[in-house]
C-alpha cells in the first residue's frame, strides 16, 4: 500500500522529509490515516495472501441468499469512472453494498475534463463531502496517484491508462489459487496486447511476486520498443524475469494458466496489426493451442471477450475456462479490498515493499 504520508517522498531515503510534492509547487500537508490500493507493486506477498484469504470468506458472504453485512455501515464509497466499464463498476458497487456501505456512482468523461484543474476540483469537491473511499477508473496512467495526493479518502485504482489494474490481478490470483493451490512455480502465459494492457502489466507483477513464472506472447508491434522477443527481461526493467516467447505455441507449451487479453479494433486501425483475422490465426487461443498447455490448465480472460478473435468460442465456454468464475471472484476480492481499507480499525500495514 502506498505510504500514507503522501506529501513526503521518503520511501527511498533519498528525498528530504520536507520536500513538497513536485507538481504544485506548494507544500501539501496531507497527513492521512488511511491507505490506498494503487498498484500491487508496493504490496508484500504476505499482504497479498492476507487479501486473498479475506476474499475466501467474502466469497461465501457474496453467495448467500441474503447478501448483506454491516461491516461498512455508515461508510461512503464513490466510484468515479472516467472510462466506460460496466463490469468493474458494478463489481465494486456490488462489493460495497454487500458490505453495507453507501455507494455512489459518478460517471465523468475525461474528454470533458479538458484540464487537470477540473479533475483536481472534482476530487476536492468530493473530498469535502466526507468520502471514505474513491474507486477510480481513468484513461490516463497515474491519475489515481494524482488523486491520492489531493484527498484523504482511500483511493482504489480500478484501472489507470496503460499502467495498472490491481483488483483485476487480485481476482486472477484468487481464481488461480482456488484451482491450483500454491501459485509459486506455476507457468502463467499471457497472450495479447502487452503494450496497451494494464491487466498484462499488473498481472506480470502480481504473479511474479507470488513466485510464478510468467511468459508473454504477442506481435512485436504490441511490445515496448526496448523489449526483445525471445529474451528474458532484466531487473532494471521493473519486470525482471519476464520471458518474451518467440511464438504463441512456445508460450503456451506446458502452461498452467493461459490468459488471453482483449484485442481492440483500434490496434488494427493504428497499424499495430494487419488485421484481426491475422491476429486470430497467429495469436488466438483455440483448442489446438490449449492442448499444448498442461493437463488441467486454466483458461482465463479479463473480459469482455472478442470471441473468434483472441479466444475461440469453443474454449471460451469449454471445460478449462474460468472466465465466469473470474467475474464472480471479482466481487469477493473487491469486498476484501474495501473491507481492509475502510473498516473501522482496519488497515493494511504500510510497507516499503522491500521485505519481499
Amino acid at each position, binding site marked *: 500500500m502506498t505510504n500514507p504520508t503522501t506529501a513526503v517522498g521518503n520511501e527511498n531515503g533519498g528525498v528530504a522529509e520536507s520536500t513538497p510534492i*513536485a507538481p504544485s*509547487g506548494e507544500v501539501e500537508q496531507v497527513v492521512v490515516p488511511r491507505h490506498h490500493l494503487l498498484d500491487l*507493486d508496493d504490496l508484500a506477498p504476505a499482504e497479498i495472501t492476507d487479501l486473498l484469504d479475506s476474499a475466501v470468506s467474502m466469497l461465501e458472504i457474496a453467495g448467500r441468499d441474503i447478501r448483506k453485512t454491516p461491516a461498512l455501515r455508515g461508510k461512503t464509497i464513490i466510484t468515479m469512472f472516467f472510462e466506460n466499464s460496466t463490469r468493474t463498476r458494478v463489481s465494486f458497487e456490488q462489493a460495497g453494498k454487500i458490505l453495507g456501505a453507501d455507494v455512489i456512482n459518478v460517471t465523468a468523461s475525461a474528454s470533458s475534463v479538458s*484540464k487537470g484543474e477540473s479533475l483536481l476540483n472534482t476530487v476536492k469537491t468530493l473530498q469535502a463531502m466526507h468520502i471514505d473511499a474513491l474507486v477510480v477508473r481513468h484513461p490516463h*496512467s*497515474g491519475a489515481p496517484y494524482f488523486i491520492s495526493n489531493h484527498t484523504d479518502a482511500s483511493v482504489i485504482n480500478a484501472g489507470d491508462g496503460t499502467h495498472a489494474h490491481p483488483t483485476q490481478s487480485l481476482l486472477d490470483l484468487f481464481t488461480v489459487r482456488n484451482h491450483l493451490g500454491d501459485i509459486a512455480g506455476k507457468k502463467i502465459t499471457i497472450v495479447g496486447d502487452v503494450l496497451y494492457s494494464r491487466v498484462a502489466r499488473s498481472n506480470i507483477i502480481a504473479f511474479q511476486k507470488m513466485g510464478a513464472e510468467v511468459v508473454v506472447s504477442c506481435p512485436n508491434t504490441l511490445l515496448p520498443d526496448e523489449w526483445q522477443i525471445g529474451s528474458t527481461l532484466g531487473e532494471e526493467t521493473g519486470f525482471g524475469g519476464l520471458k518474451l516467447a518467440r511464438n504463441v505455441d512456445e508460450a503456451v507449451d506446458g502452461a498452467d494458466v493461459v490468459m488471453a487479453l482483449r484485442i481492440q479494433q483500434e490496434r488494427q486501425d493504428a497499424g499495430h496489426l494487419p488485421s484481426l483475422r491475422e491476429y486470430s490465426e497467429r495469436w488466438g487461443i483455440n483448442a489446438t493451442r490449449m492442448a499444448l498447455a498442461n493437463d488441467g490448465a486454466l483458461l482465463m480472460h479479463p473480459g469482455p471477450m472478442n470471441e473468434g478473435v483472441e479466444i475461440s468460442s469453443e474454449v471460451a465456454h469449454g471445460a478449462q475456462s474460468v472466465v465466469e468464475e473470474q467475474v464472480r471472484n471479482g466481487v469477493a476480492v473487491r469486498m476484501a479490498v474495501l473491507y481492509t481499507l475502510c473498516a473501522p480499525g482496519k488497515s493494511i500495514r504500510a510497507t516499503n*515493499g*522491500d521485505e519481499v
Partner: protein
Amino acid sequence: MIDPAQGIDKVADVLIKDGVIEGVVDPSSGRFFDGYDVIDASGMIVSPGFVDLHTHLRDPGQEWKETIISGTRAAAHGGFTTVCAMPNTDPVQDSAAVVEDVMRRAAADGMVRVLPIGAISVGQHGKQLAPMGELADAGVIGFSDDGNPVADANLMRQALAYSIEVGLPIINHAEDKSLVNGGVMSAGTVATRLGLAGVPAETETAMVARDLHLAELTKARLHIPHISTAGSIIALRAAKERGVNVTAEVTPHHLMLNDKWVYGLHGDVPDQVGSQSYDTNTKVNPPLRSHEDAEAVIAALDEGLIDIIATDHAPHALTDKICTYNEAAHGINVLETALSMVFDLVTSDRISLTRIIESLTSGPAAILGKDLGSLKKGFSADVAIIDPEAQWVVEPEQFASKSVNTPLNGVKLTGRVVQTIYQGETVFDLSTQSASTGAAVDLGARA
C-alpha cells in the same frame, strides 16, 4: 574575467561608461577610478551577459504565464541580457504588426534586450510561408514555428531557400509527429513502468536528418533548436563534416536531467511507482531523454559540435501542471536556473568554464551576427557576475518569472549569477533579494 570572444581569461577590471564597455584593464593595484562606481567582484567570474536564443515570453496572449516584464526580469535574474522571443504567441508573431508590438513594449518595459523570432508559416500552421521579408524588415533574428515542426518537407525546403533572401536562419523544431503517436515522455524502461506512452528518440533524429539534407540542398542556414538525441548528434556531425551551414543548441535540462526524473525523485529510481511519480514538471518537448542521450549531448557541447546552450524557457501556470501527466503542458521554467544547471558540468570537470561561458555568450551572438556577448570596447555594457562557490536551493516561489514549473524544486545547485548589468545599469543584484530558506536535495551527496 572571462570573455571567450577576445580570448580573455584573467583577473581584470572592466570599465563601463555611458552604457557601453570602455575597456578591460589590468587590476587596479593602487589605481583609483575617479568618478566610477566600483563593483567589487573579487572571487567572482565576470562574464559577458548571456544571450538566449530560445525563450518563450508568452506575451501577447498568455500573460497569466509570463509577460515581457516578468520574463525579462527572470532573464536578468539568470544573467541573461538578451533573449530571443519565440513566436508561438497569440496572435502568432507572423506579421510585422505583432513583431513591432513586441519590440515596442520590450523596449519600453523590458529589463533586458528582446529580439523577436518570426514564424516560418502563417499562424504556425505549416501551410503557407509567413511574410519573411516583412518580418526581417521588422527586426526578427530568425524564423521558427517552435512547438510545431514544419511537417511538410517541401514547405521546409521552400522556407530554407527563401531565407537566403533575408540572410536569417531557419529554426525548425525537429519532431516527426506521426512517430510521437500519443507519446508523452521518452520511450524506455521508465515509460513502460509508468504505463506512459513513449516517444522514441528517432522522432527527433529522423527530422533532424531530413532538415540537414534540405539545408544542404538549399545551401541555407539551419539552426537546430533543443537537440537532444545521440542519433541527432551523429547526423549533425556528418552534416558539419560535409560543410552544411548548420548550428545547434542544447538546453540545460537535456544536459542535466534524464527520463528517470519523471519518477519525481530527482533522478533516483524507486522500487515501486509512488505518489510522487508522474512529476508533470518534467514534461517537456523534446522529452527528457535517456542517460545515454544526455551523455551524448554533453560530449557534443564540449567539443563544440553543439554550438550553444539555449534555455527553451517555457513558463506554464499551476493549472497546466496540477493534473495527470497526459494532460500536463510541455515546458520547463529555465531562465533563473540555467547557469547553475550547466555549472555542474564545470564543477564536475566535464566541460571547461570558458566553453560554458562561450556557449552562453559569444556563441549565440555569432549565430545572431550581432555585436553582443562580449566585453569588447564599444559593446553594450551587458555583464553577468557569477559566484562559482555559491550554493543555493531552488525555490520556485522566489522566481521572478510568473510561473514555477521546474522539476528542480528543492534541489541544491552550485554556482550562481549574483549580479546582472544591462547597458551599464544593474538589473539584478542577489544581495538585495530575500534570503532563501528551506530544505534541500543534494544530488551530489547522494551519488
